[in-house]
């Protein structure tokens, strides 16, 4: 393996890792606070990308208003999805199963809604920055360089929000002990909606990242959701660092595997990896107790 190839793999791992970190963090926030797995998460990403496209390219108002609109729209849809798809079932014994079913149905709903609103023709978002950047001899697009650079800032912002603000503390309190949080007078329903809105907003940002790299389609969220699922299982949700570190590791594994054994085998490797993690360490690599 030449030095060039190593740099190419490293750069590719960083780009993938950034994308997966932003995607997986939202999934982890919802899982740790509500104890459910949200299969509609990929569609928040799709929705974000399409709203951004509509404002930026469709209406021609530029990318930044598009980003703001996309995050706002995704957050609103996220909160509504929580109210309609998850919260009515939270007390039920089979809530884990029901939530899978209702969020899958929600995903179908949003995907076909996007198809009706924007059609099936592939679209592409304008990049966050134009041109190419040279990094240790590997050329990557400026858009990808921006992704790699601002992802740590986004992660830091979420970490500060969860760890340093009263609202973030309330969210963690509901996640750790639902009854105690209720007794302290925390508005659990609104905090759950907040968790969903936060997750959906992050997914929308991931959608904007991806929408300028690949073509957008109503089904574009499916693959990133599966990758984020592998990441969340691998890292566990008990700590903030779990899914973040796991995202970059999975990005690295994917980049190495794509280089060494090809694009077709790589998804199989990742799913084998996920099954292996679940068999040996279901709480995840960095998980303490399981929830």
């Amino acid at each position, binding site marked *: 393996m030449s030095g060039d190839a190593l740099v190419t793999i490293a750069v590719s791992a960083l780009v993938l890792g950034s994308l997966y970190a932003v995607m997986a963090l939202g999934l982890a926030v919802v899982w740790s606070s509500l104890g459910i797995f949200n299969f509609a998460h990929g569609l928040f990403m799709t929705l974000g990308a399409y709203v951004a496209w509509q404002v930026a390219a469709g209406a021609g108002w530029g990318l930044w208003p598009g980003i703001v609109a996309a995050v706002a729209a995704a957050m609103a849809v996220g909160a509504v999805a929580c109210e309609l798809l998850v919260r009515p079932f939270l007390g039920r014994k089979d809530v884990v199963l029901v939530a899978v079913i209702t969020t899958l149905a929600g995903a*179908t709903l949003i995907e076909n809604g996007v198809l009706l609103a924007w059609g099936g023709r592939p679209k592409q978002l304008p990049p966050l920055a134009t041109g190419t950047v040279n990094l240790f001899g590997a050329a990557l697009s400026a858009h990808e360089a921006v992704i790699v650079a601002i992802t740590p800032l986004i992660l830091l912002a979420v970490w500060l929000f969860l760890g340093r603000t009263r609202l973030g503390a309330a969210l963690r309190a509901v996640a750790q002990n639902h009854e105690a949080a209720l007794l302290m007078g925390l508005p659990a329903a609104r905090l759950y909606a907040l968790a969903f809105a936060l997750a959906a907003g992050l997914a929308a940002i991931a959608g904007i990242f991806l929408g300028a790299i690949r073509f957008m389609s109503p089904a574009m969220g499916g693959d990133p959701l599966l990758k984020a699922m592998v990441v969340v299982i691998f890292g566990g949700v008990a700590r903030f660092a779990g899914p973040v570190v796991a995202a970059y590791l999975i990005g690295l594994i994917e980049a190495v595997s794509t280089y060494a054994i090809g694009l077709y085998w790589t998804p199989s490797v990742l799913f084998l990896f996920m099954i292996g993690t679940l068999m040996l360490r279901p709480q995840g690599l960095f998980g303490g107790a399981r929830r």
Partner: protein
Amino acid sequence: MTRRGVVIGLAALGLLAALPFVFPVPYLRHIFILAFIYAVVASNWDLSLGYGGIFNFAHVAFFSIGVYGYGILTKLAGWSPWAALAAGGVLATLAAVLVAIPVLRLSGIYIILVTFAFAQLVLQLVVSQSGLTGGMMGMVGLPTFQIPGYNLARDGKLGYYFGALALLVVSTAFLRAFVGSRLGLAIRALRDDPDYAAARGISVARQRILTLAASAFFTGVAGAYYAAYLRIASPDAFGVSLLSLLLSILLLGGLASIYGPVVAALVLTFLSEASVDLGPWRHIAIAVVIIVVVRIWPGGLWSALRRLSS
């Protein structure tokens, strides 16, 4: 089974047997054939999900393994279609035993995730082995069933209609016998109170393997039958739209009832076929039905009807 149940069951069977002669419309038979197949798949899923309480999301993969097993064995290995039909069931059962291994140690959401990952793994393997499976394009022109001197697709698919009906009857009889047996009682006990059941000497590991394996056999056979009938094997067999349809059949029919999913399969396959022209709206309608049913009738329509009649 009560006497009234026997009478209703036989009457329904008589109606379904007479139907293709009363209404000799091939398209109607086509929808019924699909409905019978989906009924087999959904009611077998009810065994693991409803009775066993195992959140198995690899069930659709068992069906696809039957589909592709049939395609590969008949087209590439030159097996006779009938042998490949049985092999579809055996392959799906073996896959179920494989899935059972990680499932044994896990519970709740982790079972959903590991079985979901297994289904994705099978899909990825199928798509990546394009030399064997045709990749994303799938396989076409699979051989159909023949009995000497007669092709089941003749006379407006009459043979396929009765074949599918027979498959449904045998599978349903098997499922009823299974849930009524000591084994069936044991898996329900494990679902309702795992610790107590284990303390009474029920082996969690053995019951879970047996439940998954039993739920997979006729699912795999149904997959092979589906492939022989439509003469194609495509990655759509893994798709979310089939998963959604089966889930809505299961939910509408109600978990842990066997007959519920069978009735729901007939109703929903008709609604689904009738609404093909609606495009995306059809999927939206199915999704809304799922959410509303889960919200309003948690036990499914079957239990709602039973409560009404009693």
